[in-house]
């Protein structure tokens, strides 16, 4: 399983959209790494998330690859990851942070 940690702000993403995102993240992991994603979902309560010291609207998605990735492949996957997130939610790309790590530093 590919570890995928999602951090979102409270009230930002409905249960239906969360379900869709979990499915799409797992599909992305299968396509990229041959394994489904094990998605963890952390909701930051209102008044507890800050970006640039102001109330945050940012989502952070962090996935760990099962192999070392060439940078061109990582960049393409990150773009896909962040764009699918923006497509399914009401956030803009400016509000999405994606990270895809190689396995050795975990």
């Amino acid at each position, binding site marked *: 399983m590919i570890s995928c940690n999602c951090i979102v702000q409270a009230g930002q993403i409905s249960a239906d959209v969360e379900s869709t995102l979990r499915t799409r993240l797992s599909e992305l992991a299968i396509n990229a790494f041959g394994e489904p994603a094990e998605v963890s979902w952390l909701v930051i309560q209102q008044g507890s998330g800050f970006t640039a*010291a102001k109330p*945050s609207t940012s989502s952070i998605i962090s996935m760990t690859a099962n192999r070392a990735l060439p940078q061109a492949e990582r960049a393409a996957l990150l773009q896909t990851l962040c764009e699918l997130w923006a497509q399914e939610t009401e956030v803009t790309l*400016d509000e999405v*942070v*994606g990270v895809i790590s190689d396995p050795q530093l975990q």
Partner: protein
Amino acid sequence: MPLYLCNATTGAIPDSAKPAIAKDITRIHCDVTGAPAQFVHAFFVENEANPPLGGKSAMVFGSIRANRTDAQKSQIIEAVRKSIQTHAGLSLDNIGMMTTDVPASWAFEGGEIMPEPGEEAAWLLRHHRANAPD
């Protein structure tokens, strides 16, 4: 990125203290590293599995871009712990913190790969232009 995720026991960091701590974290990170404030995320949670509290009342885990010096990291850790002590009234002994390095090339923010530390100017210029009104 950076993301500072602060886990605490219930009520250890009151809601009223969080804006001030977040403001300090942002200022500290920017002062020490020269990074722009818009990159700095400070999130607070309670009784989560991660980062492990390890017997502390509060534990901060900072995921920061790689290539910061050990001295910079130590400076950030000391100042953030002091901020929490000041605003939440916890003893320093009860506040833990650690950081981990994330290569900038592994992170994507604002629709593109993050710039390396010290190379933010062009990124910011592109984004200011993109966000400028017509």
